[in-house]
């Protein structure tokens, strides 16, 4: 990812350090900079939340203070938690001016062919995306089936019991520092409940959500797929998301009940000034199947390891991911599969690409517990380095705690080979086209899992990012 494409947003926006003009501050409701118990009470009060949610937020804050940064992986000690605004009321969020959006980002939108209304939404120029008009029929159809699809704040108000039953049950606030932070200050995100036996045929996209809010810093997503139900959820979009907030810490919790199926697809493409620290975890009951389709193209530093806890017998977990690290990018991504039930199976396919000095690591855990007899896991990590400066590490941890488990692990690191380049170039493709084609072929196993329009966008995007990679 070149400087030309994704410049340091801080430099471009200057005064707009937090995404709005300083001379306009009077119109905005936001908490003060930094975090304290009072600020958390304030956030909860603004949202008019029940006491139990405030209690969880406060407990999470204690966890946040107590838990240190992870002792593994990229160094996070530079994050200054006092230098962040933790809550901005979204309806008051001052819109960026279209003129102020960096031209590189506008260019990318143009090249991706994103409609203007959507471009403005993505760039934070408008905070509301009028999905209702566009997706009206889909929304009615979902409601008739009893599907709940709301932003997380509204879900807490309208379905408090359901919410309370599942919230924080697979990602506890004591899990890690950033899950704690998210739990303390979360705002926005998606809430989905699919009733027993309901199979949603079409991919459910986050755009369908009524009055979908601008993507936030501390989103909380909660998905419950009840017995025998199925959903294919697509979060966000592949287009670059321009955000001036430097720290993003989201939590996604998914419950896949008996015989249920959930696929969660996302392609993260935050601008390069973002540190993205996400906890994504699902709990899978008997015969349930969870699939994470996880793309990581953007952000400067990204740590994300979608997990499946395969609790029920015959539960199944799949993670297919790609990570792309360009100039000044560090992708530390992977997957976790925890086998608890017997006959559980898991599969991880990870594809990593590094170019222009980017760093991309695969970090994963596969663990088969004592009771997970006859569990089977397969891990496939492939990395392709486009040039000499780029780096990659594969850091897998595989543990089997019984005598009947099976783990297969394959890892390859390859360079774009001279033989391949010569072959493609001998057919008239330039060095750049040839490299791009080899890389696109490499990520194809991921791209084919995405809905068509996403795959097309993803391909376009990688091509843009590859521009200037060689020669």
């Amino acid at each position, binding site marked *: 990812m070149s400087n030309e494409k994704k410049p340091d947003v801080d430099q471009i926006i200057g005064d707009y350090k937090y995404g709005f003009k300083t001379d306009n501050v009077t119109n905005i409701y936001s908490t003060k900079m930094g975090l304290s118990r009072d600020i958390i009470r304030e956030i909860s009060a603004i949202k008019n939340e029940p006491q139990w949610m405030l209690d969880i937020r406060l407990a999470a804050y204690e966890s946040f203070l107590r838990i240190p940064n992870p002792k593994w992986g990229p160094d996070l000690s530079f994050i200054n938690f006092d230098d962040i605004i933790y809550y901005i009321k979204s309806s008051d969020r001052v819109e960026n001016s279209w003129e102020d959006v960096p031209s590189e980002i506008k260019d990318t939108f143009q090249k991706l062919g994103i409609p203007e209304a959507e471009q403005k939404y993505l760039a934070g120029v408008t905070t509301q995306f009028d999905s209702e008009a566009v997706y009206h029929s889909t929304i009615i159809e979902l409601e008739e089936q009893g599907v709940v699809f709301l932003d997380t704040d509204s879900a807490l108000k309208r379905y408090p019991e359901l919410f309370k039953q599942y919230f924080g049950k697979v990602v506890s606030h004591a899990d890690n520092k950033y899950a704690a932070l998210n739990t303390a200050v979360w705002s926005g995100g998606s809430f989905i409940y699919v009733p027993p036996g309901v199979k949603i045929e079409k991919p459910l996209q986050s755009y369908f959500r009524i009055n979908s809010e601008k993507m936030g810093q501390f989103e909380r997503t909660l998905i419950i797929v009840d017995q025998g139900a199925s959903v294919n959820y697509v979060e966000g979009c592949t287009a670059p998301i321009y955000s001036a907030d430097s720290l993003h810490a989201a939590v996604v919790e998914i419950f896949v009940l008996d015989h249920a199926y959930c696929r969660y697809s996302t392609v993260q493409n935050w601008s390069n000034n973002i540190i993205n620290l996400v906890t994504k975890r699902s709990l899978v009951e008997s015969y349930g199947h969870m699939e994470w389709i996880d793309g990581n193209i953007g952000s400067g530093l990204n740590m994300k390891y979608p997990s499946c806890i395969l609790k029920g017998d015959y539960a199944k977990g799949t993670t297919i991911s790609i990570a792309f690290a360009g100039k000044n990018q560090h992708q530390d991504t992977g997957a976790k599969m925890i086998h608890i039930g017997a006959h559980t199976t898991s599969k991880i396919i990870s594809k990593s690409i590094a170019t222009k000095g980017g760093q991309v690591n695969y970090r994963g855990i596969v663990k088969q517990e004592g009771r997970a007899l006859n569990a089977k896991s397969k891990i496939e990590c492939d990395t392709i380095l486009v040039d000499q400066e780029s780096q990659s590490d594969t850091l897998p941890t595989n543990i089997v705690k019984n005598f009947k488990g099976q783990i297969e692990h394959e890892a390859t690191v390859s360079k774009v080979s001279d033989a391949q380049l*010569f072959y*493609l170039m*001998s*057919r*008239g493709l*330039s060095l750049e086209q040839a490299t791009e084609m*080899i890389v696109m072929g490499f990520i194809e196993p991921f791209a084919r899992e995405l809905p068509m329009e996403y795959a097309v966008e993803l391909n376009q995007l990688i091509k843009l990012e590859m521009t200037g990679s060689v020669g």
Partner: protein
Amino acid sequence: MSILEIRDLYVAVEDKTILKGVNLTVKGGETHAIMGPNGTGKSTLASVVMGHPKYTILSGSILLDGEDITTLAVDERSRKGIFLAMQAPIEVPGVTNFDFVKTAVQAHMPNDKKLRIGKFILDFESAAQDLQMGTGLAHRYLNEGFSGGEKKRNEILQMKLIKPAIAFLDEIDSGLDVDALRIVGENVTAMKSNDLGMILITHYQRLLDYIEPDFVHIMIKGEIVKTGGKELITKIDVEGYDWLKAELGVTELEEIRKPVSLGTCATKVPLK
């Protein structure tokens, strides 16, 4: 009609000189065969003309229509009309054959012209049919999991669609069974025209039964030592290269082995 002129070409790879003064001129409409024992530089010659970065040109020149192309990149040479059907085509996983060939054909068109996709699909399908490659070819990944014969036929398919001016076919016959050889032979012969100059590199006569050359060159130890017509093919097939020893006054031909005589091959009528 293009003309390729190779003049007094010396080429080395890792300090070892492989080509020692090769001279060859190929015009549109002509078909040349280069024969010779293993390891004498035939494939090197093809790769060097294509521009493989592994080789260093020590001296001499390669001219295409009078222009020296030795400093051009591989893709530039391709776009100027040079083509190399490779001995061992490379596999590129995840890239469909169709996308690849489409990109290649587009690359050969002038910048202001766009490929007409509908017509291209028809051309692709008809070329695939001519080569008897089956209907799924377009969506298979480039050479991945192809049999040896399929890979070779795929090279010819690309050649048909790219329509080069000068084409090297490097051991396009190796790994082909008799039927595949016939298919390849017929397709290559059908491409013959004044707009195409071809250089066939082969050990064996059998390819030349299907594609008739106008000139036959024998290359030994990095040099073209003899040039003639079709009569040379039969002579080599029967006598190997030993007779050249005497003729050339060469005493050491340790690298040279007599090729397997096709007269013993069950699928072929014994040679007279």
